């Protein structure tokens, strides 16, 4: 079937043919095919909502296809549930984290497959912790197996998910945006694990929106668009531009660096902010028309700072000046009233009311504007405004009345962005704004942020992707272990400079 870039003449371990899947109002997959050979990394790419996650959920028995055939080792199989897929050696790292928050890392990894003792009744916790520690060591990450997952950052939770998938020792491993919350080091460690798996003949499906990752590890690339199969190409010889063009069906502007800088007018001044051990004496300023990047390794405390400034978490000490005047911000409501917006890194839990419509989510922070007679909601007006933003941000949704939960991850992110754009705050804090967003949309969001800055807003961008920080920021604050370890000029900073500051652990002692 596929004569392009096929690794060798071995038999495909997985083949999917003519897969169809519809959800109410959405044709998610339309005659999609896909195959995977042992020992290859097959990247699956496409814009938000192209159907990547859905295709993989079908392969892992989470969804049932409406039509089509799945073959494993050449034989047609039925996958009525996750069990069936696991039994065939297919395992997945889900895009949305599916973890049990009250259980420890080790308990999550081995859930349902616990090592037993005492006639198979009792769980052998020690054995389990040892096994988990071994997997973490292989991934070169430092997560205590007994730590409760609910207390971890999204990044660490993602690492636990990866560890869990690895623990199955599967023949087929599907990774749905495994690195969306990871920093460069962790990504490198993951890649070496992937290389190792490849060497052992494991077939890997790799879904990502990060082009450099595809170049780095993929053997073949399959591109999907609007629920349809577009093409399968060898990763090494195909120019990225071609792939992007296939994905989006149009050309994209080149990447470039930030130019100019903000005005001298100070919008936000944070002084001596402290919160437990997570935020230590953090001070910074944000100027009008400026994009201030926050860089750092996982757990550096950037999210903590953002949440504290936004009033989402209580602080121990510190003052916040807005437009030169000291303000007490105790709740997010205070913050929004002061013109601060915060886009959370965890959209599922903190960003969206997933049970409500796209319209209600986009207008949520601005509902007060859509009230007539002090009580009644002007739904038609809200529809109009929401439609405007759906078009502006190219949200892929059948209508603004669609329940947000049914949107793909990236489109959900756009809805949250839309919410804050509509609220029209002066100070915008974007925490991982492009997490899970495809290249096309990413460029649009960058353009949008720049436009907002040029309109005179102050913008803080927290991002774990260094190219993104460098691409956007006029100034870059780097954090390590709850402190700001340095500030760099965005026009001249390099990745190396940032990494140096981000790992300056002993700055604490000084």
């Amino acid at each position: 079937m596929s004569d392009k870039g096929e690794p060798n003449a071995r038999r495909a371990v997985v083949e999917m043919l003519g897969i169809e899947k519809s959800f109410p109002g959405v044709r998610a997959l339309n005659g999609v095919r896909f195959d995977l050979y042992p020992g290859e990394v097959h990247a699956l790419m496409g814009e938000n909502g192209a159907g990547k996650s859905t295709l993989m959920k079908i392969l892992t028995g989470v969804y049932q296809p409406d039509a089509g055939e799945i073959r494993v080792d050449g034989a047609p199989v039925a996958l009525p549930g996750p069990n069936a897929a696991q039994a065939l050696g297919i395992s997945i790292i889900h895009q949305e984290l599916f973890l049990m928050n009250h259980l420890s890392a080790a308990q999550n990894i081995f859930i349902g497959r616990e090592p037993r003792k005492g006639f198979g009744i009792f769980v052998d916790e020690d054995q389990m912790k040892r096994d988990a520690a071994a997997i973490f060591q292989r991934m070169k990450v430092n997560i205590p197996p007994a730590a409760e997952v609910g207390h971890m950052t999204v990044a660490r939770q993602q690492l636990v998910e990866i560890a869990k998938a690895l623990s199955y020792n599967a023949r087929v491993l599907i990774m749905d945006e495994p690195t969306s919350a990871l920093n460069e080091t962790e990504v490198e460690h993951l890649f070496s694990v992937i290389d190792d798996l490849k060497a052992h003949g494991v077939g890997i499906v790799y879904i990502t929106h990060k082009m450099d990752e595809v170049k780095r590890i993929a053997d073949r690339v399959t591109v999907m668009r609007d629920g349809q199969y577009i093409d399968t190409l060898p990763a090494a010889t195909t120019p990225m531009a071609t792939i992007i063009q296939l994905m989006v069906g149009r050309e994209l502007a080149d990447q470039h660096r930030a130019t100019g800088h903000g005005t001298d007018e100070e919008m936000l001044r944070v002084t001596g902010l402290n919160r437990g051990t997570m935020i230590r004496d953090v001070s910074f300023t944000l100027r009008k028309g400026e994009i201030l990047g926050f860089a750092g390794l996982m757990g550096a405390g950037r999210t903590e700072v953002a949440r504290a400034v936004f009033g989402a978490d209580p602080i121990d000490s510190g003052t916040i000046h807005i437009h030169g005047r000291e303000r007490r911000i105790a709740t997010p409501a205070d913050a929004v009233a002061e013109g601060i917006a915060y886009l959370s890194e965890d959209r599922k839990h903190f960003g969206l009311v997933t049970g409500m419509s796209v319209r209600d989510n986009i207008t949520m922070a601005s509902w007060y504007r859509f009230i007539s007679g002090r009580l009644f909601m002007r739904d038609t007006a809200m529809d109009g405004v929401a439609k405007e933003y759906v078009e502006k941000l190219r949200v892929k949704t059948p209508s603004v009345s669609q329940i947000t939960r049914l949107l793909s991850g990236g489109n959900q992110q756009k809805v949250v962005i839309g919410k804050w754009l509509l609220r029209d705050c002066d100070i915008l804090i974007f925490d991982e704004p492009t997490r899970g967003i495809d290249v096309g949309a990413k460029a649009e969001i960058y353009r949008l942020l720049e436009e907002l800055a040029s309109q005179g807003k102050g913008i803080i961008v927290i991002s774990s992707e260094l190219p993104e920080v460098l691409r956007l920021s006029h100034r870059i604050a780097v954090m390590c272990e709850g402190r700001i370890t340095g500030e760099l000029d965005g026009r001249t900073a390099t990745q190396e400079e940032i990494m140096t500051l981000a790992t300056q652990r002993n700055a604490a002692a000084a």
Partner: protein
Amino acid sequence: MSDTTMGKTGTGKSALLSAETMQKAVAFVVLIALIAFFSAFAANFATGANMVGIMQATAVNGVLGVAVTFVIISGGIDLSVGTMMTLTAVMAGIILTNMGMPLPIGIIGAILSGAIMGAISGAIIAKLKIPPFIATLGMMQIARGLALVFSGAKPIYFNDTPNYGLLSPESSISKLIPGVEIPNGVMIMFIVAIIASIVLNRTIIGRMIFALGSNEEAARLSGINVDRWKILTYAICGGICGIAGLIVSSRLNSAQPALGLGYELDAIAAAVIGGTSLAGGRGTVIGTIIGAFIMSVLTNGLRVMGVLEEWKIVVTGVIIIVAVFIDIVLRKRT
């Protein structure tokens, strides 16, 4: 692009509408089936007088169901609705009988005292972060105890307020449209339901309640003053309990201080049978009213059929489960 979006929005909206309609329709189907069954198999069931009796038996549970529907949609629960109703009835008794004030003050007093108690529950939940189940379990006891304290553990009669019967047993509508003997208590239930429905679906209060129930943290991080809306939600619930208190005490021409325990479970059952999700974020007032009717049709029908009391209890348990099951199955089909 714009055109497609427009077109799709249209269908989306009507799809939503029909889903909502469907949800009510589901409970409605169960109700109609029950009525048809009893009409066929229980002699004397399908008489006008019995229908009025059923309506009257629905009024209190229906109003309490509406009260608790607000709270459940907001992601909470209120176990105190039954005893709160009693406490408000006692308050009305104190104001009208013991203090001899005019009727409107008694009405306002009952509703207001319910709203205040509800607001206290809400404040405990919002500010002290006590789970609603526990906060209102405590409030259920507090209201029950206070009702006994205030009334001196004796019924308070409304004999000095001759027009108190206007609130429930009398039928003002029958004076306008002779033959339509619907008691005022039932009319009040319908009016409460209509207003509640408008509040939930058309006003900012309702929108906030749905947002709280769907994802409170996301609402908070959108700059919404979550605590304030939560307190308001429980206050509304308490105020509606006050209306239930007026209906029940008007019907009995007395505030009975021990009544109300266990009513909370019936009210919650009515809401859930009517399609309100205990997880929050989903529900309709009309569904709750239908749910309350299902419960009282069932009780009445089994009684008219002469089913043994103990088997009646068993059957009621079974039907609660079956009704919700049918709701779930039919709703999934759409």
